[in-house]
């Protein structure tokens, strides 16, 4: 028997020692320090001697002037370090993707080698010798090419590290920082910020302008004005995430220091509380990485801890809306504030996983809590704030303002979308559905809209509301969903009941919820579970045919109680559980009971 020289296995591509998510964390830390330095340097410059005085004795003796000059070196050093860390992270993402492809190819080649070895071993004569030799030669050539590609990959890994190390070593002394500050090619952040402000309302123009900037310019303006970059629709979401995470870390550092000193003002206490809540929320998902890029799955798209009467504003995405095939944006309702972020992220993540499991492409699921939602819950008799705040719930002003803000946000992520436009679903729960309704009425560019437990929307029909396909999840034992004007009446203060058959939306199955007084609130807050969640996932992933539908209210099979009937019936049901008194109390004391 003649020997066949079968090639040896191709060794695996080594594991990346530096991980993309770790590079992100490094860059965030550096940005946080840079933001702080720039804030102080900017203030010191603003009260410094005018530049035309130069280094005269007076100017030289002026503390803020000296301080500004001293910090300018730190600022320039941090700008270079942040830029290098950002570039390093981006290279690691590309290297990760290349490694995945190389490992796939390595598995294919090695499997083919194994097949050949087995066939050669099983051969009893030389009849297939020529074929074996040809296949062996072919595999050897493929293996050689693959080894060269792996070597090239290793070289690029080394280059990426070398470049970062060189950049950091180039500014790792105060003297080198001063040299960097004197460089003539430093970005003009003042001009960059002015330009960004002037383009503010036009995400497409912002995106085009941003792409023309160098990385150094992008990073310089990000750390000089993180609040501008983080909120600018049209800038890639990953860059907005960087700005917002940098600012979050900076707020935690700065206000944490002031807290230690006992110097926090009331407004600063709100900001720090909200920042801590966002940090905790992101921490819960810090270990979840995007499977293709190995970067953090969660992206902080909006961070406004000072807004909305101290409640703060925040938007977090699981997955990248710029590259995802399907994007959902869910808007919460009553009692939304930043301290409740963790629970809302859990719901959003649950929807993300369910939509991904549909297998219809990549998904980004956004939680958007960046409007001034009513603070109290009028349905909870134990919540006096809710009773007080009922007027603002009953009025639509906060929903209108929130809808306007939501429209700006969605325009922004539409503006930074890459490739074919994503299939976009906007989801509103409770008062958030009214907010979504106002945004839709103003032309929100969504493909699908999901209204959950809605107290009403500002149009009598889906067609009048929007061109998007409207889906409705309304449990018949959810009292909030019975507030809208529908087939059997209803308050209608916030608009029309979208579950009404005459509205013309598509109602999907959610179950009715329990008919007991103490379960009514739970019925209202459990749409991100069970059949309701499954059906939403179908909608988000574009699997409309899989949605389990149920008749609209007023249609055949769509019988339901009115709100007064529900409250009486639920009290009676509770009697069976020894809770009649609770039901009566609910009825007597709730503002709804008083009104209806």
């Amino acid at each position, binding site marked *: 028997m003649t020997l066949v020289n079968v090639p040896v296995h191709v060794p695996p591509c080594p594991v990346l020692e530096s991980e993309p998510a770790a590079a992100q964390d490094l860059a965030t830390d550096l940005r946080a320090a840079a933001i702080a330095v720039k804030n102080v340097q900017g203030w010191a410059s603003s009260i*410094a001697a005018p530049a035309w005085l130069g280094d005269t004795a007076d100017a030289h003796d002026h503390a803020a002037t000296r301080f500004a000059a001293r910090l300018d070196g730190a600022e320039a050093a941090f700008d270079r370090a942040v830029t290098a860390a950002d570039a390093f992270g981006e290279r690691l993402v590309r290297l990760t993707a290349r490694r995945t492809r190389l490992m796939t190819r390595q598995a294919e080649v090695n499997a083919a080698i194994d097949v050949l070895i087995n066939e050669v071993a099983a051969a009893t004569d030389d009849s297939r010798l020529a074929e074996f030799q040809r296949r062996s030669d072919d595999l050897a050539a493929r293996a050689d090419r693959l080894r060269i590609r792996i070597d090239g990959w290793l070289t690029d890994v080394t280059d990426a590290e070398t470049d970062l190390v060189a950049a950091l070593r180039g500014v790792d002394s105060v003297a080198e920082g001063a040299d960097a500050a004197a460089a003539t090619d430093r970005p003009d952040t003042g001009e960059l910020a002015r330009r960004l402000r002037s383009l503010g309302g036009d995400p497409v123009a912002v995106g085009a302008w941003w792409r023309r900037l160098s990385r150094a310019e992008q990073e310089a303006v990000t750390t000089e004005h993180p609040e501008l970059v983080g909120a600018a629709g049209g800038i890639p979401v990953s860059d907005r995430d960087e700005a917002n995470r940098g600012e979050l870390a900076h707020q935690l550092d700065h206000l944490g220091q002031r807290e230690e000193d006992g110097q926090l003002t009331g407004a600063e206490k709100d900001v720090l509380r909200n920042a801590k809540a966002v940090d905790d929320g992101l921490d819960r998902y810090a270990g979840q990485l995007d499977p293709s890029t190995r970067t953090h799955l969660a992206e902080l798209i909006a961070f406004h801890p000072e807004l909305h009467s101290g409640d703060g504003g925040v938007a977090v995405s699981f997955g990248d809306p710029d590259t995802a095939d399907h994007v959902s944006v869910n808007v919460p309702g009553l009692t939304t504030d930043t301290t409740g972020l963790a629970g809302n992220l859990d719901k959003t993540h649950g929807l993300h996983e369910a939509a991904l499991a549909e297998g219809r492409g990549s998904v980004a699921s956004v939680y958007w809590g960046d409007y001034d939602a009513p603070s109290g819950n009028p349905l909870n008799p134990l919540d006096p704030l809710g009773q007080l705040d009922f007027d603002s719930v009953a009025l639509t002003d906060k929903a209108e303002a929130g809808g306007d803000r939501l429209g700006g946000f969605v325009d922004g992520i539409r503006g930074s979308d890459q490739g074919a436009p994503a299939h976009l679903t906007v989801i509103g729960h409770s008062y958030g559905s009214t907010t979504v309704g106002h945004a839709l009425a103003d032309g929100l560019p969504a493909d699908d809209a999901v209204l959950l437990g809605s107290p009403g929307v500002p149009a009598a029909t889906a067609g009048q509301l929007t061109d998007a396909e409207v889906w409705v999840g309304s449990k018949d034992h959810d009292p909030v969903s019975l507030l809208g004007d529908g087939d059997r009446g209803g308050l209608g203060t916030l608009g029309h009941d979208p579950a009404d058959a005459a509205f013309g939306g598509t109602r999907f199955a959610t179950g009715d919820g329990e008919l007991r007084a103490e379960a009514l609130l739970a019925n209202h807050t459990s749409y991100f579970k069970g059949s309701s969640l499954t059906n939403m996932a179908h909608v988000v992933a574009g699997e409309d045919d899989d949605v389990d539908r149920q008749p609209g209210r007023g249609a055949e099979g769509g019988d339901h109680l009115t709100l007064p009937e529900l409250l009486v019936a639920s009290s009676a049901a509770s009697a069976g559980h020894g809770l009649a008194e609770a039901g009566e109390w609910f009825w007597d004391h709730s503002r709804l009971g008083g009104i209806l």
Partner: protein
Amino acid sequence: MTATLDVPYAVLKAARERWDAAADELEGAWRRLAGVSVTGLSATVAAAVTGFAEPWVDELKAASQLAAGYAEELFLFNRMSVLVDEAEAARLRSLLPWVEHDAPIREVGGSGVGLP
């Protein structure tokens, strides 16, 4: 002979608060930098990050302490209203915004005389 500065109380107070805020902000920055995340980075990169951070931690810490010292000087002047001599008054004046760089320094007789 002691001296005092003719500047509005609000200017002194704002300057003190702003230097104090600067100290806090820079302290937060150097503490962030001192704990900079190197988990998940190669040993080569981690060493370079640490090598970059160390001198800047020292620099920002020094700047923070300097700002805190300025805030403290202004705080003490708020309470005492008088300074040892004109040189000391000029030094304190240099901690204020440049627009105050010509603020009058006035001699006060004896000791313990308050601001006008």
